[in-house]
């Protein structure tokens, strides 16, 4: 008994000593502003990140990359769809519990709402200066939230079921009855990106677009990623409003898919992230913001086919440069007032 406990003690001592050494080594390579935050963050030991932005796999990779850069600070990655992430945060707020440090979703209105409620902490990450200009502008002028992720949503086709010639070229083409039973799409009640996409479609073509889409009997998943899965399986042949990153990842694994950049505009959704005012680990949260706006983050996510938002990191393999395509982007106001409306309209039209 005694022997075991002593051995356990020695082992944990070794781990502490080891991590201390690693931490010192890591700290020396960091820029000054990060080093300072890192020292404070290390005392907090962890940071909890509610995220609905990246895929689960990418989010986990971000968490690991953070841990490697800043040893001793652990990221609790709580990845779900954006609406579920916000639902969790709302339940926290309602229950009066502070668990979340950094909140990221694909739904603009989440952050603006939290800002209005006075629940956010203003912080301007130094690393944000290196972000592309349109991204920087999409953040909050008061620095209460920032954008380090944009969703790029477009159409994808199953290459064996749909040839390049007959494939739809635009959002409008999807209404053609020949796609009946072939489409797959996410749900605005679960995915903020789908909500934003629906707001844009409604703005461009009216709600009528969806009543017509309904006639084509799309398979409705939950997240915007679901259609990618449905295509991989061969369950459906056209993915609607799929995120480019997930689709590219799937393609890289040998799945028979190809991206279609719609002629009436690829949907780009700036997705804000914010630090909670009552964050239990405020310094770690700030450090996470620095990390997520810095080059290391984009070097990590790029491997999972997320767009790079810094000019010092190239775009992911197989993606068209953002400058070469037609982009449509909703304003924060449109998203904030529009998404709740389209959610209800969607449920009335699709019955779910």
């Amino acid at each position, binding site marked *: 008994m005694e022997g075991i406990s002593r051995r356990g003690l020695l082992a944990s001592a070794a781990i502490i000593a080891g991590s201390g050494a690693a931490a010192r080594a890591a700290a020396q390579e960091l820029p000054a502003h990060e080093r300072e935050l890192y020292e404070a963050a290390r005392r907090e030991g962890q940071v*909890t990140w*509610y995220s609905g932005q990246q*895929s*689960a*796999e990418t989010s*986990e*990779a971000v*968490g*690991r990359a953070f841990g490697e850069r800043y040893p001793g600070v652990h*990221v*609790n*990655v*709580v*990845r*779900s*769809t954006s*609406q*579920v992430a*916000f*639902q*969790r945060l*709302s*339940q*926290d707020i*309602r*229950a*009066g*519990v502070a*668990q*979340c440090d950094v909140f990221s979703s694909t739904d603009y209105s*989440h952050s603006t709402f939290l800002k209005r409620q006075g629940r956010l902490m203003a912080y301007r990450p130094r690393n944000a200066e290196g972000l592309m200009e349109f991204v920087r502008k999409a953040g909050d002028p008061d620095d209460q939230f920032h954008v380090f992720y944009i969703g790029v949503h477009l159409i994808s086709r199953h290459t064996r079921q749909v040839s390049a010639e007959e494939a739809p070229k635009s959002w409008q083409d999807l209404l053609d009855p020949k796609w009946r039973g072939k489409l797959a799409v996410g*749900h605005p*009640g*679960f995915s903020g990106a789908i909500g934003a996409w629906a707001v844009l479609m409604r703005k461009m073509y009216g709600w009528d677009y969806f009543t017509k889409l309904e006639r084509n009997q799309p*398979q*409705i*998943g*939950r*997240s915007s*990623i*679901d259609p*990618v*899965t*449905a295509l*991989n*399986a*061969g*369950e*459906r042949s056209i993915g609607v409003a799929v995120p480019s990153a997930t689709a590219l990842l*799937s393609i890289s*694994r*040998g*799945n028979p898919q190809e991206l279609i950049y719609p002629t009436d505009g690829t949907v780009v959704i700036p997705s804000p992230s914010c630090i909670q005012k009552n964050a239990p680990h405020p310094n770690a949260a700030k450090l996470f913001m620095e990390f997520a706006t810095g080059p290391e983050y984009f070097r990590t996510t790029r491997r999972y086919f997320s767009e790079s938002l810094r000019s010092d990191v190239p775009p992911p393999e197989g993606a068209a440069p953002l400058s070469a395509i037609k982009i449509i982007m909703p304003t924060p106001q449109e998203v904030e007032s529009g998404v709740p409306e389209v959610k209800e309209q969607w*449920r*009335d039209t*699709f*019955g*779910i």
Partner: protein
Amino acid sequence: MTDSAAILAKPAALEARRSGLLRRLRYLEPSNLLWVLLVAALLFLVAVPIGKLLIVSFEEQGTGAFTLSNYATAYGRARYLEALGNSLMLGALSSLFSVVFAVPMAWAVSRTDMPGKGFTWAMVMGAFIMPPYLGAVGWILLAGPNSGFLNQAWSWLTGIEAPLVNVYSFTGLALVIALHSFPLIFIFVKSALDLISSEMEDAANILGAGTLTAMRKVTLPLVWPAVLGGIIVVFLETVALFGTPAIIGIPARINVVTTQLWQFFEYPVRVEVAAAYAMPLLLITIGMIAVQKLLLARKGFVSQTGKGGERRPIRLGGWRWALLGYCVFVGALSVLMPLAVLLQASFAKAWGRGLSFSNLTLDNYAYLLFRHEMALTSIWNTLWFSAAAATAAVIIAVLVAYIVARRLVPFGSALGFLAMAPFVIPGIVMAIGFYAAYAAPPVALYGTALIIILAFTARFLPIAFANSSAAVRAVHPEMEEASRILGGGRLLTIRRITAPLISRSLIGGWLIVFIVASRELSAAVFLVGPRTRTMAVLLYDLSEAGNFEVLAAFGGLLLAITLVLVAIGMKLAGRDFMLRRN
């Protein structure tokens, strides 16, 4: 004597009071305090959450003022009412399917000379321990209208484009649910059939009834109460099920009560409306039990409890192979096929590419075990939450069962009622009740491990109670009295005599609670915080992310853990410990 001498010196009034107190202390059983604690625990676990749910449904959000508007909101839209109707239809349909699956199998195993009974047992057990949402994922892979293996095989064989089966349909949903709930009816019906003596059938045979007529006119009517009880349980389980409707129902565009409840938990969280919307589930439950009472009141089913008479298997001749075929068919649908595709997917790089060496990988498992931030934590969470809940449930249950069986307190049966009450409260309603009662300050349990453990404890208390109460009743009270008269106090007797005698059954009960808690989704999904996610919730989250390979691998891990536990259970508590009906 010296005591009283000392007291005599004091004023008479004081003496009277003192001796009264001393006397009372002398006569007090130290265990009485424990009963008070138990009552408090049961109120905390069962009565308060349900009471709070009821109260909250009449409260205005924020102010807490009395209002009926929650009910107006909850039932004010056709879509919400439609979801309610869908749930009732789904419950009815999946009960029907379950009966069709279970009753012939139960009859075959209990009364006939069908071969392969062990296999049939294993299939029923497998269907029982496989979490329903995992089965749902399996069936998506099998019966997706275009990509499902079954449909692909069908069009490859026949050249017909139209799918053979479509999981994304009302029938598909009901069928998938039934495939994992029929074991409940099987257990009920089989244990009832086991009690019927062959003489009942002989009596019908001698009067000229053939095997089939005897079964139809005598045997089955006698087990009708068991069938009905099973139907009610399956109906209630179905109506309260969250995972399968969320996974299959949404793509099939079928909204049910539970997915609608989930919507009320979207921002802004409307617990009040959710509470109001949950009320029909409670009413349905009460109604079903009333119906059961009504239907069973008229006829006697005495022979069910009869012990006399021998039980011989009925000789079926060639028909026994047909019956075995049916059992294999149900086993294939519920266990073998979903399990096979899940395993295939879990070892595949891309499951759509099918079986080939180039498609084979261990990476899905490796990713979960070594690179995923949450997977190991959630496994650990699941293990210790379930263990804690099982321990708490068994301790409370055995104490209550003991009080009730030994009639130690005047209103003991009320305790028993409280302990059984969660049985008829849908898990999802229980979770909302817990959220309403304990999430917010002053208790502020939201996001803690404790609230999940407590909710699991309450939810599975009836299982533990039924198990413990059977175990306690099997111990003759004289076993304890023999110890007490020799000088053992009540608690010492429980510790030294009763506990060792019932420990085997209790271990079985503990494991059952552990297993069902480890896969519980409906109650957990509303109560988990970022660091308290369980395997079931993570599995659900993974199903949102749409990566079926990783999802299947995680399901594989969950099943592996469950199987280890079941194996331990069989070793410690007997082969059929999961399927015994108490």
